[in-house]
């Protein structure tokens, strides 16, 4: 079995994101970038399945500018066997990403595609479901547990009501929640070894996919700020304020 994992390079989750003054986007210069957090879970799960003997190969793919390669290198350092970097510059929407991934799937012929449930920059939560639609594959979204069976997966999904279990045929798309596993760290020797692993480069334009955005970003602004509140000295004062000032209890 072969598993393809899609990893995206995003602003690190610890960074306090700032909006650019001209309203064209957020500040990315000199800002720490990392792998989109749930994509680390996707890689970890694929590598674990490989280690259990149920998969033979893990391929990591990223779509983005040259720096996006770092994300693939990191995936290689934690156990992926091969990397693919599809080069595009500028904003690329989930629909275009899913079309590119469709081409990669046709080429690589994986049995499973693992992705994050949501990219923490655009917060779209679309790409996996879109790819599943384009391939006419089943989709197991928001996965917190994956069991690989003979010809299917049993997946526990995190939904608003609690947990849901579904069984999907293989091939299948899975989008991962942070609770799926505990991603490992890359050790220094493995980071060195990863530099020797194959990393294929493809230009998005060579794949014949139209990546032109369909959504125009007109303006990006700061959300309204909350007024600073006060500290209360005691529980008694708190309850009085809630009752008589805020009038919420």
């Amino acid at each position: 079995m072969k598993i393809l994992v899609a990893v995206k390079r995003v602003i690190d989750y610890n960074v306090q994101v700032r909006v650019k003054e001209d309203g064209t986007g957020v500040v990315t210069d000199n800002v720490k970038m990392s792998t989109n957090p749930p994509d680390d879970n996707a890689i970890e799960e694929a590598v674990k399945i490989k280690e259990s003997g149920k998969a033979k190969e893990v391929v990591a793919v990223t779509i983005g500018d040259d720096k996006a390669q770092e994300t693939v290198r990191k995936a290689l350092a934690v156990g992926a066997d091969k990397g693919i970097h599809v080069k595009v510059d500028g904003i690329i929407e989930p629909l275009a990403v899913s079309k590119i991934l469709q081409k990669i799937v046709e080429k690589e012929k994986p049995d499973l595609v693992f992705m994050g449930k949501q990219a923490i920059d655009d917060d779209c939560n679309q790409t996996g479901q879109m790819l599943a639609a384009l391939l006419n594959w089943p989709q197991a979204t928001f996965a917190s547990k994956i069991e690989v069976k003979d010809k299917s997966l049993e997946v526990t999904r995190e939904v608003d009501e609690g947990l849901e279990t579904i069984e999907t045929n293989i091939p299948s798309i899975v989008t991962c929640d942070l609770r799926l596993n505990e991603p490992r760290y890359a050790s220094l020797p493995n980071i060195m070894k990863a530099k020797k692993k194959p990393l294929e480069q493809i230009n998005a334009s060579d794949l014949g996919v139209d990546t032109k955005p369909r959504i125009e970003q007109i303006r990006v602004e700061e959300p309204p700020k909350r007024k600073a509140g006060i500290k209360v000295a005691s529980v008694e004062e708190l309850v009085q304020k809630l009752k008589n000032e805020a009038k919420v209890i």
Partner: protein
Amino acid sequence: MSALLIAEHNNKEIKPFTLNAITAASQIDQDLHVLVIGYSCEAVAKSISEIPNVKKVIHVDDVIYENYLPENFTPVVIKNSENYSHIICSANTFGKNLMPRIAALLDTSQVSDIIKVISTDTFLRPIYAGNAFATVKSTDTKKCITIRPTSFDPAPTTGGTAEIVKAEKAEVSDLTKFIKREEVKSDRPELGTARVVISGGRGMGSGDNFKLITAIADKLNAAIGASRAAVDAGYITNDHQVGQTGKVVVPDLYIAVGISGAIQHLAGMKESKIIVAINKDGEAPIFSVADYGLEADLFEALPQFLEELNKLNTIQK
């Protein structure tokens, strides 16, 4: 053209967030039609027909739709989508799972999780965990939109008389099998719509200690929330998680107990009307969004809080 909204329900009752999505959808297009897909769900179709904003109900009923699977729902939506400029549903786990599958097949770039309708093609949506708001304009002819329910009021539920039209089922998919749903039943108000929410974080220390929160929730008729760390630690189930990758809540009163206030948590609650923070670390970032901050040990503060509430003659429910 008209807008088509996909209703979320459990075959017996409409889910509350569908009402918020209806409000947003009718701001986009007043000629709003609602698609009800399910099994033996006549009562749902009927109750939706009584919502004044709804002009027509399309009802597709078959045993294959008993459990919601996007692989089965998508063909129905596609089949019924022809005459609509907008396909809409709420941005909860139902809509997040379903809508992109539809959008990809319609070759349209979905606009996720909108918090404001600016015009029929322009919307406001949060990005970067709500640290920025983007005004975006969709240039696709057919638009797929998901609505952040807590940003819109629920639509009124009575007074309407929309016609109900039956439609045929679409092709069946055998790609996925529904196995089970472990729903956490409770008599408390739903987290997404509760007037008061009290949430516990890693500071609670154990699942057992959540009883301190439960006692106050009982008193205030509040829903119980949690940080991701509290869920990860197994103190409480995942349906309680508030934040960027959990639920968004906008109650009149949000009480954060033993929660540090990471941006991913704030993303789910910082629009609340009044925020209270109880934390023993005076520097915790949660205090920067709190209207009332109490720097205290929660194991002392929560029992006192309950005691003070018990002294009140009346408590709003």
